[in-house]
């Protein structure tokens, strides 16, 4: 059987043996969000994720998750930390955000921010955007904190 030909020159087929991991730990400071987002975004770009995913889905969903972790989970307490672990491979991005808070019920927060009675609210769009922009959003029980895991299939 002839060997499979890996055509990396097409620009849309990433090397199959590549897995990239980004792992950072930050104090609760919203000004650090952009830097963390850039680290993850860059890996997705290197792994040839679709342009829309690199420019919109990943940065916005991850910003929301980090913002929630810092402001809600950790109560904006700089002594508390947020741990981020992102795994990027040719199939998908999986990013986990862990804060030190008690966690919140992902389903409880769902009122539809696009409903007419909610459209001019200032708040309430964060989780909605995470769910719309990522393929999967899960909350996982961990000791001493709360973990949110988001998955995005490479497009």
């Amino acid at each position, binding site marked *: 059987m002839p060997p499979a030909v890996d055509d990396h020159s097409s620009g849309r087929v990433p090397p199959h043996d590549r897995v990239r991991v980004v792992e950072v730990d930050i104090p609760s400071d919203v000004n650090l969000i*952009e830097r963390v987002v850039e680290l993850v975004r860059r890996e997705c770009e290197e792994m040839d994720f679709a342009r829309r995913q690199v420019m*919109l889905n990943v940065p916005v969903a991850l910003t929301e998750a980090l*913002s929630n972790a810092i402001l809600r989970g950790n109560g904006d307490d700089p002594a508390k930390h947020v741990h981020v672990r992102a795994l990027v491979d040719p199939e998908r991005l999986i990013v986990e955000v862990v804060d030190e808070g008690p966690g919140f019920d992902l389903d409880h927060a769902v009122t539809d921010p696009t409903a007419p009675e909610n459209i*001019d609210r200032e708040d309430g769009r964060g989780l909605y955007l995470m769910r*719309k922009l990522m393929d999967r959003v899960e909350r996982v029980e961990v000791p001493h904190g709360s973990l949110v895991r988001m998955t995005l299939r490479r497009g």
Partner: protein
Amino acid sequence: MSFSIKKEGEVVVVDVEGQLIVGNRQELKQKVLDELERGEKKFLIDFSQTGYIDSSGLGVLVSLSKKIREQGGELRLANLNDDLKTLFELTKLDTLFQIADTRDRALQSF
């Protein structure tokens, strides 16, 4: 993010340079409210240099829209790239704001 504010005719034009997100959206809100308080009524926010906006950035825009309207003023948004347009469509905020493709069209629409 940084932003610059200038007057073009009767319109206060704000250029948002960079992302509009949780760490910086309060600054934008305050600067626009300061202008509103000074009696300005027409506002245009230009996003040609903005990559992405998060929910708190959207929230500030919603809040400004309301406050400007309450004072009898008008707000336009201009130069949303395709990704930003998608964001506004996903959240149905494209129905709340007056969005123009170009700065000139926005200025002419007042």
